[in-house]
C-alpha cells in the first residue's frame, strides 16, 4: 500500500491543468493579466509539485538537469536575439516595429511587429524563469538528500 495515495492521485489530476494554465498565461499575456514571468513561475510550480509528491529521483528522471541548464541561458538568448533581429531589420535594439512586413511578405501569417516582438520576448522570459526556478529547487532538494546520508 503506497502512502499518501490521495495526495498522489489529486496532484496527478492537477499537474496537467497547472501546466496548461501556465501556457495560457504565457501566450495570453498580451490580452489578459500575465506574461512570461508569471507563466514561468506557474509552469515551474507544476513541475515542482510533481517533485514534491513523487520524489526527487522521479523528478530528475522527468526533468533532465542538462536540458534545464541549457534552457536557462537559452531564454535570455531568445530575448537578446530578438533585439539583434530588430537591428538586422534596420531598427534600434528591441524596436519591434521593424519586424513588420519585412522579408518580402514571406512571413505574412505572423502577427504585427510589436505583437511578434512582445511574443518572442515573453517567450524568452518564460523559458528562463521556468528553468531557473526548477534549477534552484532541484539543487536545494538534492543537497538536502546528500547531507542527510
Amino acid at each position, binding site marked *: 500500500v503506497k*502512502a499518501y495515495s490521495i*495526495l*498522489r492521485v489529486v496532484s496527478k489530476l492537477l499537474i496537467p491543468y497547472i501546466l496548461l494554465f501556465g501556457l495560457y*498565461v504565457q501566450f495570453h499575456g*498580451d*490580452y*489578459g*493579466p*500575465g*506574461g512570461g514571468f*508569471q507563466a514561468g*513561475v*506557474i509552469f*515551474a*510550480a507544476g513541475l*515542482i509539485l510533481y517533485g*514534491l*509528491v*513523487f*520524489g*526527487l*529521483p*522521479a523528478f*530528475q*528522471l522527468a526533468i533532465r538537469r*542538462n536540458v534545464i541548464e541549457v534552457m*536557462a*541561458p537559452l*531564454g*535570455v538568448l531568445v*530575448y*537578446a536575439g530578438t*533585439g539583434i533581429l530588430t537591428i538586422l531589420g534596420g531598427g534600434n*535594439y*528591441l524596436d519591434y516595429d521593424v519586424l513588420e512586413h519585412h522579408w518580402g511578405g514571406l512571413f505574412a501569417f505572423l*502577427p*504585427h511587429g*510589436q*505583437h511578434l*516582438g*512582445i511574443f518572442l*520576448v515573453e517567450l524568452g522570459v518564460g523559458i*528562463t*524563469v521556468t*528553468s*531557473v*526556478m526548477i534549477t*534552484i*529547487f532541484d*539543487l*536545494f*532538494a*538534492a*543537497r*538536502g*538528500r*546528500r*547531507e*542527510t*546520508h
Partner: protein
Amino acid sequence: MSESLIVVPLLALLACTAVTVARMRDLWAAVMLTGIYSFLGAGWMMVLDAPDVAFTEAAVGAGISTVLMLATLSLTSRTAKAPVHFPWQALVIVTLTGGALIYGTLDMPAYGDPNAPVHQYPQPNYMERAEHDMHGIPNVVTAVLASYRGYDTLGETTVIFTAAVAVTLLMRRPPLEAMSLQDTTSTKFGDMSESHGPADPQGSGGNTTVDSPRVADLGRGAS
C-alpha cells in the same frame, strides 16, 4: 465605503500574520505563514485593481518562494534558536524606521488622486499611446514591460538567470570522480541525485538516517 469592508480586514490580517511570523520559533510554520502573508497581499493588490501584480505575488510569494524556503529548511534546522535576551536594540531601530516611514506617507498624495506625480510623469497617456502603437494589444502592462521598457525586462531576465548561475555554482554537487576521493558513502548514495541515473532503489528506501520527516518529504516524496 464597501471597499473598506474588504481592505480593512485584509490589512488587519496582514498585520496579524506579520506579527505572528516575527514571534514564531517554529520555522516550518513561519514559512507557511509567509505564504499566507503573500496570498493576503495578492488579494489586496487585486482590490487595488492591479491583477498583474496580484498574479505575480500569488505565484511567486505564495507559491515558489514557500517551496524554496521549505527546501532551504531541509538543509537547516526546523526551529529557530530562542533569543538569549529581549532584543531592545532591534525593537528601537524597527520602531524608529517604522515611524519614519509612516511620517513619509503623510506627504503622499491621496489614493487615486489624478494629480498625483505618478499619473503626470513620465507619460500620462500610455493608455492612448499603447492603443495606437501596439495594434490592439489590450494589456498595457505587458506593452509597457515588454516593449516600452524592453531594456529593463531584459535586465531583469538576466538577473534571474544570474541567480541560477550563483545557486548552481554554490550548490551543485561535484562530479562522481571527485566525490569518490572524498568518501565512499556519498558516492554510494550519490547516484540517486544524478540527473541521468535511474531511480535508485536503495535511495528511495531511505534506509539510512533520515532524521526528521520534513527531510524525507522533500527529498523522497511520498513514494
